[in-house]
Structures are given as C-alpha cells and as structure tokens.
C-alpha cells in the first residue's frame, strides 16, 4: 500500500467540512435501502397514497349513503378530508424515521455519528429533514390523488408544511419514548388520538381550545378557514410543531446519552 498523506492537511482543511447536498443524497439513498429491506417498513411510504385513492372513491359513496340515511352530506366536508390526507405522510414517514432511529440506537450507530464531522445533532437533523421533505412532497401529491374538495395550492402547501413537521414529531416521539420496535407500536397506538385533532374545527369554543396545542388542528383550520385566518393557522401550526419538536429532541438526547 502506498504512503498516504493523512487527512486534515491544508488541502483537506480548505474543503468545506460537509458537502451538504452530496451527503444528504447518500443518506437518503441509505434510508431508502434500509426501508426497502425491512419487511415492516417497506410499504409505509405508499400507505398515504393508498389511503388517498381509497378515500377518493369511498367518501362519495359514503356521502351518498349518509345523505340518504341521515341527511348528512359528507362531501361538504371534503376539505377536512383533504387536510387529513395532507397530514397522513407526516405521520407515516415519521413512523418510519422513528423505527430507523430505534434501530440506530440498538445498533449503537447514533453514538458513532457523534465522532464524525456530522455530529449526532447534524445526523439527526439530516435524517428527520429528509423524511420531512419526503412527507411534504407526498402530502401535496396525496391531496392531488384524493381529488376531493377545492384545490387551493397555497393552503395545501401550508398544510403540507405542517404535515412535514409531523414527520420529525412522530420520529422523535418514537425514538424518545420507545425502547424497541414492539414498544414503538404501543407508542403509536397512544399517538393515534392525534388523528382526531383536525375534527376539533367542528367544535365550539371553549372546547376547541383543547386542540390548540396540536399542529394537526391548525392544519385543518388552514384548509377550512372556518375559525381562523389562514396566516394565523399556518404560524400556529408551525409554531406548535417547533415547540413539540424542541421538547422531544431534549427528551431524545437524554435517552441516548
């Protein structure tokens, strides 16, 4: 083997520490491979689209049935269904990210990232960022696949942004509170109640206040514009997401240290 100049020489120091886009592409490729090779996780990325297609046909059928039986027209609430569909990818992609983080912790990989230039926080941010970006894109596409409600790209992008933040929320929640994948499934059941948060837009004050801490509620407000201005709903949705993520990151750090 020929003689080698150690890294950290002048040439190496003048290069940027991390070629961000190249590294993110590598990490994204690795995460996709790991998802594809895990029988439990391989189908998760497609579930939001499957759900959107099912709802596309099921909601009109159900609406007709309910209108005949109870005089209730479900299609009048198609924007609410659209909001839920926009949030789906955040939840499912966050689950996948959380399960990968649990694997990392079990395998000791998360500790190893701490001695690399990325650092633990950088690696975690990159991974959650990738899943959030995927959730954002998937949310917009799933809403289009649903095809119900009034298309409004501005509102959809806002709700998809809140949904994207949920990927980080769910990922960190799983990694912070579950010891392994089995416990992770239990944690997910406990989080299932968050699916109902968008329905709180139908409640009157002061009951509706109970849903204010949950970003999912604000995504529904943004889509329906029923009780709040869209700007306020967007800021509230992103703000509550940031608070939850900061709190969960603190809990996750304590768990891995």
């Amino acid at each position, binding site marked *: 083997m020929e003689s080698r100049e150690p890294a950290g*020489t002048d040439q190496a*120091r003048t290069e940027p520490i*991390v070629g961000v886009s190249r590294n993110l592409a590598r*990490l994204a490729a690795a995460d996709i*491979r*790991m998802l594809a*090779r895990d029988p439990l996780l391989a189908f998760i990325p497609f579930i939001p689209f499957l759900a959107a297609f099912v709802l596309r046909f099921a909601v009109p059928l159900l609406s007709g049935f309910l209108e005949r039986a109870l005089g209730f027209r479900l299609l009048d609430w198609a924007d609410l269904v659209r909001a839920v569909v926009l949030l789906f990818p955040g939840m499912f992609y966050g689950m996948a990210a959380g399960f990968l983080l649990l694997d990392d912790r079990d395998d*000791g*990989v998360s500790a190893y990232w701490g001695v*690399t230039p990325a650092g633990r926080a950088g690696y975690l941010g990159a991974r959650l960022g990738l899943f959030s970006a995927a959730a954002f894109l998937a949310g917009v596409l799933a809403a289009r696949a649903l095809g119900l409600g009034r298309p409004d790209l501005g509102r959809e992008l806002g709700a998809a942004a809140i949904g994207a933040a949920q990927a980080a929320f769910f990922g960190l929640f799983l990694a912070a509170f579950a010891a392994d994948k089995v416990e992770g499934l239990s944690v997910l059941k406990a989080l299932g109640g968050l699916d109902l948060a968008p329905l709180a837009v139908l409640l009157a004050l002061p009951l509706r206040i109970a849903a204010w801490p949950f970003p999912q509620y604000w995504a529904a407000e943004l889509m329906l514009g029923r009780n709040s201005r869209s700007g306020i709903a967007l800021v509230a949705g992103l703000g509550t997401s940031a608070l939850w993520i900061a709190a969960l990151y603190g809990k996750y750090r304590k768990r891995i240290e």
Partner: protein
Amino acid sequence: MIEVKGLRFTYPRAKAEAVRGVDFSVAAGEVFGFLGPSGAGKSTTQRILLGSLGGYSGRAAVSGIEASRADGAYRSRVGAAFEFPCFYQKLTGRENLELFASFYPGPKDDPRELLERLGLAEAADRRVAEYSKGMKMRLNLIRALIHRPRVLFLDEPTSGLDPANARTVRDLVRERAAAGAAVFLTTHDMAAADAACDRVAFLVDGRIAACDSPAALKRRYGKRAVVVEREAPERDGPSLLSPEYPLDGLAEDEAFRAELRKPGLLGVRTLDSSLDQIFLQLTGRELA
C-alpha cells in the same frame, strides 16, 4: 498531535474522580498504547479526546484544538474504531463504508483496496447483519482509516481476530503511523500492545502508573540477568534452566561461560518482564 495535561474528570453524581490528573502526549507517527484494567479511566479519557464528553478540567487537545471545542473540522481529523463495532445492519459492508466516508472532507482511500487487504472483499456486498464478530471488527477498522485521519483512536482493534488478521491489523496501524498519523490504542491485549506500540502507558485508578516504550518498561520491571536453557536429560521432559547470571560482567563470568559449554544448549533468555507481568504488578489484577 495529542496533548493531555492535568486531565481530571468526575462523572455526574459520582463520588470519586474517574480521571485524576493524567499527563501524556502522542506525537505524529507514534503508536501510543493506553493500557489498564476495566474502570481505570481509559474509555473516559478516549471519550474526552473524541469530544464526546465535556466538563473536564485540565488540557485535552488534538492538533492544538481543545476537545471541549470539538467541531466538524476537529472530528474530520480523527478516526475512531470502538470496541463494539456499530453499523447499519441492513446495509452491506461497502454501503456502510461509503455512507460514513461521505461525511468526511478531503481525499479518501479506495474502500475496495482496504476491504481486499483485510480479507473482506468477497463479503463487501453482503449485509453487515450476516458478518461475524471478526468481520465487523475489520470493517470497523476500515471505517476508521478510510478518510486518512491524522489521529486514530482504536479500542481493542484486534479483539475477536485470528492471529493472521490481527497481524494484518497491526501492520496497517503501523503503516498509518509511518505515514504520519498519531495512534491512540486502548487494549487489554498486551501482546498486541508490545508488538504495535512505540510507547505504552498503564492507567490505574485514573492515574498513569508507568509510561515508556515497551522495551524500556520490560527492562525496568524485569531483572538485569539471563538464564541458560538446556535440553532435558529425559525425552519429552521439561527443559532445564540454569541459575540466573547478572548482565553486569556477564562476558567475564566463568560460571556462565561454563554453562554455555554444556551439551544440549537451547538458548539464553533475558529476564525482562513481560507487559502482562508489569500489568499485574502495577494493577494487582490479572488480565481478563
């Protein structure tokens, strides 16, 4: 390259200090062995130097940068192989190497060459979950070397390896030192330390009890004397050892010269201490 001076550290809620005023330095091109029983403070010192553990007092610096200020640039100069190799189990060996290497700046080694050298070329495209402990240890070393670090932290790098692979690992470590890297090697394997290290330090209860080259330590803790070994009179019996002859004046020692003239001479042994014996003497503990 590595400079440690008056290093002290106490874990939160612990009554005693884990590291109690440690001083040493490791120069470029040097392999420095950090030896000691479990709980002596070896891993704590290593974690501090890797920038993973703050809250210490004293100096702990790599390339002049204090470990408490370790950032991406600091960690890009460092390569680390922990005792328990950790990888993405669902990725192949090659995929793991490429992923981790991509986060380091500067020129890198060709993973194929290193995989070949360490006997992992054929397993490179198998998932790490299918690797044996020894294969993971070798992959662990490759990951630490691939970005050509200026400072290498190796924790039990030959653990779980057969003698041939252990030798390859030692050779690679020596080559990197010859190319200018400073190597900080933590191990219980005294033979590996003896073979690979320019200097070793014995850490006992958070303090360095002895630090020198293996040869100097073996002389210091051994006897300045030799014994002559001869064949046993009966077949398959144990060889015979002469009385000890002091090194001082050995050439003029008539009894020693007479011993050499006796039939059945097998060899002459110095009574240097081994690193195992020094470990036992300094720590009062047997090696696990």
